[in-house]
């Protein structure tokens, strides 16, 4: 058996092992050294940063946590960075979720960012978690006409009609900026289709989504989406922009996406090498068969 035949018959488990090493070794290296690669923001990520930065202090923003722990590896870093920038800009943050576990993800992000680093922010006045609401697109249609009807109480059971942060809010159009972190259905696509399109330009939206969703969302940028964070790469770019703007010592929890970029690099390099090797073997095999 020559080399080409042996490689063609290679057990695929060696490929799995190589991929495991390509991802695991950089994680260990970054975990020990603390070093990360520099990020150059793309226009889509920079647009997300600018959309939040352009909001005047005290503006109410709506943050929809439409994901669950299965996608947290990709989406949690961008949710953390979004809340970090909003809190830093002194915006009033209203969190909602259309995924059953999204309310818990919002609670966890609030605990990690707001309660830990912005203790002066008061719940109900500066931020609130309205929790999960069942109904998918139905909820989106209702918030277009009556926001508090869709979310009558917050996650603690307080009536939203009595919350100072929601005074003056009639519909979703009273939020100048909608930030959505989405892992699928219902998520960014539905927010664009049912809310942004129907809001007559009153609601500006930025989205952070998974890699699988990103190609479907890019056509909406920059018309219907003011900015987009595509997968962990978008999260890393946005994270670096937020950290640069805030300056000083950056807590490790705000560099989670940047830490995940080294495994990406080596994983992708291996993938490219395997595709090239696979094609080369295929053509060499075909040439050998012809001869």
């Amino acid at each position: 058996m020559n080399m080409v035949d042996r490689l063609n018959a290679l057990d695929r488990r060696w490929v799995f092992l190589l991929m495991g090493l390509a991802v695991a070794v950089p994680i260990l290296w970054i975990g020990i050294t603390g070093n990360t690669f520099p990020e150059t923001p793309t226009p889509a990520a920079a647009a997300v940063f600018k959309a939040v930065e352009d909001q005047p202090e005290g503006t109410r923003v709506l943050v929809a946590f439409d994901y669950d722990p299965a996608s947290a590896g990709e989406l949690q870093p961008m949710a953390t960075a979004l809340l970090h920038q909003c809190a830093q800009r002194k915006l009033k943050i209203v969190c909602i979720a259309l995924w059953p576990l999204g309310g818990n993800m919002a609670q966890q992000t609030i605990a990690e960012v707001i309660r830990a680093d912005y203790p002066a922010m008061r719940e109900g006045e500066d931020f609130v978690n309205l929790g999960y609401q069942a109904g998918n697109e139905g909820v989106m249609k209702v918030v277009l006409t009556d926001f508090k009807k869709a979310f009558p109480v917050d996650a603690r059971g307080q009536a939203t009609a009595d919350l100072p942060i929601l005074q003056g809010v009639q519909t979703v159009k009273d939020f100048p900026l909608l930030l959505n972190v989405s892992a699928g259905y219902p998520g960014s696509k539905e927010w664009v289709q049912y809310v942004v399109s129907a809001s007559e330009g009153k609601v500006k939206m930025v989205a952070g989504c998974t890699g699988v969703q990103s190609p479907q969302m890019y056509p909406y940028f920059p018309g219907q989406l003011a900015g987009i964070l595509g997968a962990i790469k978008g999260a890393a770019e946005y994270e670096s922009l937020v950290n640069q703007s805030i300056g000083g010592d950056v807590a490790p929890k705000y560099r989670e996406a940047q830490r995940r970029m080294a495994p990406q690099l080596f994983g992708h390099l291996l993938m490219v090498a395997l595709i090239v090797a696979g094609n080369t073997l295929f053509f060499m095999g075909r040439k050998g068969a012809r001869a």
Partner: protein
Amino acid sequence: MSRQRLTWIVLGVVLLALLVVRGFVGQGLGRVYVQADQVSLAQMDEKGADGSLVKVWKPVPAAQATQQWTEWSQAAPKAYFEAVAKNPAQTDITLSWPRTIGLWLAAFFTLAIFSFLYSDNVFYKLAEATVVGVSAAYWMVIGFWDTIVPKLFGALTPDMVIKWVQPSLQPAGAMQQASMWLALVLGVMMLWRLAPRGGWIAAWPLAFIVGVTAGLKIVSHVESDLMAQSVATMQPVVQLVPAADGGTDWYASLWPTLANALVLVGVICALVYFLFSVQHKGVVGATARVGVWYLMITFGASFGFTVMGRIALLAARFEFLFDDWLWLIDPNHLRS
């Protein structure tokens, strides 16, 4: 003994040996610590948005509280080490056995799922069955407590739900109450398919769902995808970017113009590819071929994004194993 069985035994023994060694080196293996926070609340009158008095629960000192409970929040191992160094008998921060067992179960199930990459085995089957079972149960509980109880029973029997289940429920209006009777009837009709006779009754609520969904989707798709996307495509191909001196920055104008030209060519060629009423020969064939290239590039980009997503998830699981479970790395400085 087969080669596969031998490999499993060797892998298991090596993993166990490494775990034992890790357990006795440095800070040991993953543990979860918690600290107790006493919550003390009392109900107070407060002016609502319309000026009327509303009852609100407020945090108060323990002596004035009418409701008290203990919340256990996770503490960083570093906080525990420091507390023990100061006072070895302290009980403010303690080891949580339930959470530690949860952490080890999470690690076990992660490894069990990974083990499928070698071959199908009993640990993978156990993990798979657990995921399916837990997910089904979770969705059932969510469906019951977040949809059926507050939306259906909350509208039909609000007093009972407020008294027994959800004191914060906002009573439904007459219109919503009436619509929920319709929902209840449709729900019962849907379940009729389980009955031995009269299965056709379930077709009516299904028709209702299909009709409503189609109505909702058609409007939004036409508005946001067909119209808005068409408008976004019909932009002037040449985009002139003004320069600082009032003229035109030709270099800066080149890229948006090129991007618009690529979009225009891509839309036309991809549409021609899907034009099946004309034979794909000559100019039409060449245009369709370009369309195929555009589609292939799109699929390639989607594949690339999917790979990125999957590697990110793999990296997150490895981080969990190395950081939370094995305590090999400490990127968040929770232990040092």
